[in-house]
């Protein structure tokens, strides 16, 4: 009985706090709803219509037709395959490489460490167009540095058309994606490694662990949250690989990706004439894949 007035009061207090909390959130909430939630809803609704450049407004409702058509669209299937190749190759290599680099450099003294961090982070902060243009020059068939070096060392006889040959083009793009993706994971891993409780490491050493065992049995589990974050952002980045394709191959020579195909379908004047509904359906599918993969990563990380 004595408790009731108190809890009643605190409930009123809680309500007041909740209201002011939401009020503080309001500005960002408006932007979030206006520029994220509403477009997402429009996108989903739109994917169920035949909206294109010629139709007015939302277009006609066609049910799941777009989704069904997609699975018969060879271009889409190829783009999907390429996208998965990029994700499956780049995510593990980015993670493994950044883990390797950061475990090699995190114990260095301040200046040297900063220098390394700077080098690896540079491609991240440099505009992607600038980076890509430099790579385009390096890959160039006639004047590129790769062909020059390979030819002068006698490794190849004829120039390789790196970006024009579907044997190489996708891998060339993965390489660029890799260099621009490792910066952030390295910085994150360096700080995660530095934050591992030193006394745990010492306890493990006294318990009889070799350096290798200390790393995998003590440090690695401590870094799981960082690894998860890195996995998810790298996955999303790889799925959404677009600028590179747009600038280097425009989806040619076997480098089409879902992201690029969405853009191509929606905004290029094709025989489908800016088929928004169709493009949005692809967007929904991409979102589902990203969501599923991220969920899977969360689940695996939790089990660890």
């Amino acid at each position, binding site marked *: 009985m004595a408790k009731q007035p108190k809890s009643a009061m605190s409930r009123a207090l809680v309500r007041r706090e909740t209201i002011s909390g939401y009020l503080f959130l309001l500005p960002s909430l408006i932007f979030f709803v206006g520029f994220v939630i509403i477009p997402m809803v429009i996108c989903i609704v739109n994917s169920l219509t035949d909206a294109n450049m010629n139709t007015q407004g939302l277009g006609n409702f066609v049910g799941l037709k777009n989704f069904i058509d997609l699975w018969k669209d060879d271009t889409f299937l190829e783009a999907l395959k390429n996208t998965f190749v990029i994700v499956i190759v780049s995510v593990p290599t980015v993670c493994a490489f950044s883990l390797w680099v950061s475990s090699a450099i995190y114990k260095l003294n301040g200046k040297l460490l900063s220098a390394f961090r700077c080098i690896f982070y540079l491609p991240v902060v440099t505009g992607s167009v600038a980076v890509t243009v430099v790579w385009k020059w390096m890959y160039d068939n006639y004047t590129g540095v790769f062909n020059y070096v390979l030819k002068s060392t006698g490794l190849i006889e004829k120039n390789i058309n790196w970006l024009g040959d579907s044997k190489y083009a996708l891998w060339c793009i993965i390489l660029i994606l890799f260099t621009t993706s490792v910066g952030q994971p390295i910085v994150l891993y360096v700080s995660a490694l530095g934050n591992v409780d030193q*006394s745990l490491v*010492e306890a493990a050493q006294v*318990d009889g662990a070799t350096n290798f065992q200390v790393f995998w049995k003590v440090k690695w*589990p*401590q870094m799981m949250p960082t690894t998860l974050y890195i996995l998810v952002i790298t996955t999303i980045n790889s799925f959404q690989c677009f600028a590179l394709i747009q600038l280097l191959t425009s989806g040619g020579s076997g480098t089409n990706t879902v992201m690029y195909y969405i853009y191509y379908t929606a905004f290029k004047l094709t025989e489908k004439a800016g088929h928004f509904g169709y493009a949005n359906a692809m967007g929904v599918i991409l979102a589902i894949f990203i969501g599923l993969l991220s969920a899977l990563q969360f689940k695996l990380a939790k089990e660890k």
Partner: protein
Amino acid sequence: MHGSYGRVIMATVSLKGIKKIYDNKVTAVHDFNLEIADKEFIVLVGPSGCGKSTTLRMVAGLEDISEGDLLIDGKRMNDVEPKDRDIAMVFQNYALYPHMTVYENMAFALKLRKVPKEEIDKKVREAAEILDITQYLERKPKALSGGQRQRVAIGRAIVRSPRVFLMDEPLSNLDAKLRNQMRAEIIKLRQRIDTTFIYVTHDQTEAMTLGDRIVIMKDGYIQQIGTPQQVFDHPANIFVAGFIGMPQMNFFDAQLIADGGHYSVKVLDATMELAPEIEAKLKAAGVGSKAVTLGIRPEHISFSGENGPHCLTGKVDVSEMMGSEIHLHVTAGDRDVVLRVPTTELSAEHKAGISYGTEVHFTFRRDLIHLFDPETEQNLLPLENA
């Protein structure tokens, strides 16, 4: 108990001229010499920053030894990796692996040594039984209280039956009650597992109750090594005298007067005779009349009913009732003197405490007076077993 822990383990540890200089040129430990016998319980004690942890970490191999030799069982260990030293360590913050359950924490070292599963299980459960943590084996350390974590940390060390058991202030994160309880358990544990212990603390009670021998350190130097009794009865210098004992020993500037074979001390306006055995020692050491620092423990000061030439007079400042005794702070001259008076020795009117400003007369028990050289701060009386 011995048998159930398998192999018979022997471990003497000797530290010979050990020195530690950190990268920032701080010399944390100077010329540390100590021979630890097999199954001995050694306590390193001293104020914060005196180099206790550094010494322990050098034994563990977590810190390089700058100079000197560390031998375990006669083998030089300076360049042996921690994992190959066969020692176990309990850390101040427990350092339990947060991603492992209590069971996995305790099994970790054995797993690394590829001990068969059944044996690991047996050892872990046995240790858990001893430490009374069986019901927490499946929990993660996060879900345990400080005292329980403490037990797990000890458990992780004892499952290994190491040659040497190192503990760095294992009880300092616990509250007073739990600390007393765990201290008693460590004493029990020690009897059960019977191996060589090096225990670091800054708490003199822990040092006195746990150690076979105590090493008292200050500023990286060993001040005295001895049994609890030795360091209490014969502190080597003023620092040790002040560090061991609660409340602290009282110190006075005094004048030692040698008169033929007899000695007396003049403290403030009192002159006290010294006990014959002290006189004999002073004589043997050839000490003449000189200025000295006199030390007397609060419990070695006694009331005297009336004033006399061998008595000091002072006014009561504070009287602290501790239950079975009173800690009396008395101002004599310009000095604050602390007396420990058992309540049984007090008259009825003073039982509840002695009021502020009361004039009291007291004298020192003449066989328990300590004399130090004011310059070197060393004890003037030669130590018995040193």
